[in-house]
């Protein structure tokens, strides 16, 4: 691969890294992220039994 200039970066995660890229003049495309909802283990056990 050839390393080229980096005008734009997609950021997913902590804001301080996204802010740092903006400070360097990079166009930052922030993507929202939250962990997927976790099913409680006992509900999962019940579902496993009935399905």
């Amino acid at each position, binding site marked *: 691969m050839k*390393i080229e*200039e980096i005008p734009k*970066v997609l950021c997913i995660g902590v804001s301080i*890294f996204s802010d740092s*890229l903006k400070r360097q003049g990079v166009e930052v495309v922030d993507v*929202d992220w939250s962990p*997927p909802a976790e099913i409680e283990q006992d509900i999962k056990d019940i579902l496993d039994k009935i399905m």
Partner: protein
Amino acid sequence: MSSYQTVNFVIRGLYRDSVQLMEVTERVKRLEGVLDAAVVMGTAANKESLVPMGLLTSEGEKAGPNDIIIALKATANVEQLLEQVKKIIFEIKTTTARFANIDDAMKMHPDIRYASISIPGKYVEEVALNLLQHGVNLFIFSDHVPIETEVLLKKQAASRDLLVMGPEAGTAIVSGIGFGFANKVASGNIGVVASAGSGIQEFVTLLDRYDMGISHAIGVGARDLSRDVGGIMTRKALQTLNNDEKTKIIALIAKQSDIAVVREILEEEKLSKPLVLSLLGYEEKVSDYPQSPTLHGLFLHAAHALSKTMYEKAFGALKKEVERLKTLVIRRDGYPRAFYSGGTLATETAYLWAKAGLKVYTNLNFPRAEKIDNPYTSVQATVIDYGSEEFTEGRPHPIIDPTLRNKRIISELNSNEASCIAMDLIIGYGAPDNIIAKIFDEIGDAIVKNRDKRFVIRLVGTNKDHQWGQTNLLDKFGVVTTASNALAAMFSAACGLGEPAVLEKLAEELSVEVKI
């Protein structure tokens, strides 16, 4: 003191990252009527960290890892306070316009070629695979990514001619753009490949100080040179720099590596450019390339590879620093203690202390030192890496949040056991704007009260970094600063042993490696 109550509130199913929650906590602590506070995700490690602060109640104990715990010790009406805290939490989230998912972002911006990922490790795979399919090179800061995921991502990337920098990559500087923790350094012709984040920062800032610059610094992640990963990205990065027009010399920095993997790579990858390497704390030669167990030694090799003039300048500066530091050594009972935010720098210090003849205790996995039982309690000459997992799970890295390390430093300064204290202070991109001021706000009084102890800092940064203006505080508090971490380690070893000559002896070992 007026009466107070300690309460926990749990917001179920709401996520904020550790840096956002650190900001929330700081703001909540400043609210009227709040004596102490912490706002954290309900992970086991975070709940545990609330216990010694007396901030965990039975309500908080019930929180899960996807819930936010608001823990308050307050004299004011807690119901009203809670409303204010919730407001802060929602304000923090809504400051930036964002895309809801990667596909939408890539549809709107199909020209994106780089992404920075810093989400909890167990969720990285899905996000990273999606981005690779979009043809995007990745910088992955996250730790706790399963090793199988790392291998999968790196194989996919290699087959698509893409870079995966990480997981557990602290730093990368590509085409002058810093990812993660990085510094503003001069552009030049030294290309860096490293499995050590703070190792990159130490090396490139040292180069910058003596007017040498870099083309790119590619962080490949702490585990890339393990047997499991087999150096997939180290190979890719070496070839990329070998073909890069700007790069004339390649520097390879490795820590905690499988030496057989390093040997294989150096034998198999045919490079047309000069290469210099550092295997941190490892002396045995693994190839015919110039090699050093320290980053300062690597710096001398790189200067030598550039030109005789550069080497003489670098070597002359080392000799001058040693002479200056020798005059500052204080003889005092007790042991040297070192508290680091950069693991590579901690390794370098443990190595040099052991080399000086000290018996070293540490939380690092370093064969020349004893593993410490409890990283919160020092034993004789102790080196602690505050960036290691036991200190960072569910909380920001110490480069961002120095509170925990500051508390330790204050207690060590006030103890009779410590004769000298060493630390790194990493500034630049990724570190808070007020980081130097914040650290000295907290530890400054203890330094002043304990002037009979030497306090040495390796400030990892350049005069182009945006926090540089605060460096006058180091002089104000009478702290000894050094041009490299190796020099800070050598100085603290000399203080610990009460022998200024230790500095000369260790410097000799650095310098004889390079012969003109």
